[in-house]
């Protein structure tokens, strides 16, 4: 079922939803960007449709809603502990098909990677429903078509924003009550992007051998990458974290166990007890990330991890392009194959 709502009516819809839901969308933080007088666009709670930034790609993904950057798991004193709480509202997220497909990768890692589910992820994730933002044209650096992430049916509502009205497709009947008496009923089906200007040739995973891990193609990244980890932080599918116990300053006998995001490009990622550390060379970090996104995840779970949102390319201060890297992998494998024959 479809609806056509003026922005005003859509705001009434949001008002109705706010009672039950925390509503997240990409929003603008004016002058909070990396460079002075630039804006930051990232996920945050919205109050009205005008808050939603739908004409630009967000700098960061929506993963922080279900996988907070900093999360306290439990608090402890000398002889007892108490698990942290989460809010009691449901969560509605406005996001594009690439990110919905990215959320499935996060689900795989946190919920279906072995016998134990990550309860801290699950307790937020189970509250979530998706509002898919139609994405017909994509943005710079997007290559979702190459990763089959341009399309999804996993949403409760799909929306097309225009300057003054919103077209909605309603798939989840639990939202029907919020729409009644608001807009004009109509047939609306979202459209999907069919072609990106960036195209990626994903490698065939069974062609990748352990020798390839030492291939010369990685070498250039040892000088180009600076190990800042922006790519990890912006990525919808990077899901690494690290736990640490924090002893409170005023009374070190009380504290908390906290987990925060970690990134394979960032120092300390491989630190071990005793001071041992791997992948000191930045090219090996680039290789590790690349192989996770387009090799071992696929071997284990049947689809590639990278969804082609291109945020890593958007954010890299050194102009390292991940899509170019993937193409280099595929090309190098082909060349090596033909050389061997």
């Amino acid at each position: 079922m479809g609806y056509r709502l003026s922005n005003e009516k859509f705001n009434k819809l949001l008002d109705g939803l706010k009672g039950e839901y925390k509503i997240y969308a990409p929003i603008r933080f004016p002058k909070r960007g990396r460079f002075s007088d630039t804006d930051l666009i990232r996920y945050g709670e919205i109050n009205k449709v005008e808050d939603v930034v739908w004409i630009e790609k967000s700098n960061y993904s929506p993963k922080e809603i279900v996988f907070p950057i900093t999360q306290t798991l439990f608090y402890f004193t000398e002889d007892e502990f108490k698990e942290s709480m989460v809010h009691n509202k449901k969560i509605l997220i406005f996001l594009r098909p690439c990110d919905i497909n990215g959320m499935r990768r996060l689900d795989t890692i946190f919920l279906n990677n072995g016998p134990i589910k990550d309860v801290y992820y699950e307790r937020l994730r189970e509250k979530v429903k998706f509002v898919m933002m139609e994405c017909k044209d994509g943005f710079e650096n997007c290559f979702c078509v190459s990763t089959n992430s341009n399309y999804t049916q996993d949403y409760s509502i799909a929306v097309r924003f225009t300057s003054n009205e919103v077209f909605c497709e309603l798939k989840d009947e639990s939202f029907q009550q919020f729409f009644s008496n608001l807009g004009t009923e109509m047939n609306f089906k979202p459209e999907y992007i069919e072609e990106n200007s960036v195209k990626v040739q994903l490698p065939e995973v069974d062609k990748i051998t352990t020798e390839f891990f030492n291939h010369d193609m990685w070498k250039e990244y040892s000088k180009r990458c600076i190990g800042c980890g922006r790519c990890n932080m912006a990525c919808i599918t990077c899901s690494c974290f690290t736990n640490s116990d924090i002893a409170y300053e005023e009374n070190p006998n009380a504290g908390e166990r906290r987990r925060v995001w970690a990134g394979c490009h960032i120092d300390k990622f491989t630190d071990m007890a005793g001071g041992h550390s791997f992948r000191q060379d930045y090219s090996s970090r680039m290789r590790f990330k690349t192989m996770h996104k387009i090799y071992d995840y696929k071997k284990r779970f049947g689809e590639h991890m990278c969804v082609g949102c291109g945020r890593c390319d958007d954010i890299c201060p050194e102009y390292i392009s991940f899509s170019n890297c993937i193409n280099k992998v595929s090309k190098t494998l082909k060349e090596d194959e033909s050389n061997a024959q």
Partner: protein
Amino acid sequence: MSMDLNVKAIKKNAFRITKVRGKTALRIRVPGGLIEAKHLQAVKEIAEQYGDGTVHITIRQGFEIPGIPFEKMDEVNQKIAQMIKEVEIDNGVDIDNAKKGYPASGTRNISACIGNEVCPFANYNTAKLAQRIEREVFPNDYHVKIAVTGCPNDCIKAHMQDFGIIGMADTQYERDRCVSCEACVKNCSLRVTGALIMHNGKVRKDERRCVGCGECVLTCPTAAWSRNPEKFYKLVIMGRTGKKNPRLAQPFLEWVDEETIIKVIKNTYEYIDKYIDRSLPKEHVGYIVDRTGYQVFKEYALKGVVLGPKARVAEHINFGGYLYERDGFMK
């Protein structure tokens, strides 16, 4: 007929007395070091038609066109009129008649680093501020040098000016967005003042050590650090070169807003008017401050200024530098 020239009037008109008898040089102002490229055409034409075909790019970011015969000054002023109109008058600078050339030359061109239209480090649009200052202080005969720079890197050398304005970022930390990568802490300690330390996996800032460069924002991978959209500036004063006592400008104010900067500069012109030694052909503002002392200057400069809560004012300044007459070679 022998040449009979009013040298003082000529100098005031931004023409200079040169070593070549009969030849002058025109100094063209470029406030903020930024103009539309089309104006280069006028510069080229004046140099080729009236000058010796060369253009000197001045340290203050203006153009100096040498080899112009004094008798061609009026024609040259006609030629530069359109640029004066567009660059100065259209910017709000109080000039009656562009066709008469520049009405003053004492207060020098306001120079600026390239600023945040281009540079990742700059904390504000330096050209825009320079153009505003130009509008507030020019035309003026008092000899004052002003430059604005986007960050404490001070690429414009604000520390060599009577007034050096340095952009400061009030960086704010969103603790929950921090992933403890320590990039900001390491960078601040390596390249700045070590104002950041790690504590329990999060960052602490020593406000007194922070120079407001904004490097932590640049290095942060998660946007845990961002700039307060409100703009802040540091004002360093009375830096100079010269044959008596070359010295770097010293911090006078920091964490002040644009209005404070403007007001202080304008107050200083009144201070100059009151204290300048009129027996001299000209006196640079720094030497006036040397005579009256910093406290008198400070009182005058801050008249009517309402400082914000973050603002800091130097209680005393030891201007330092070295005195030619007392340095090692003359003893």
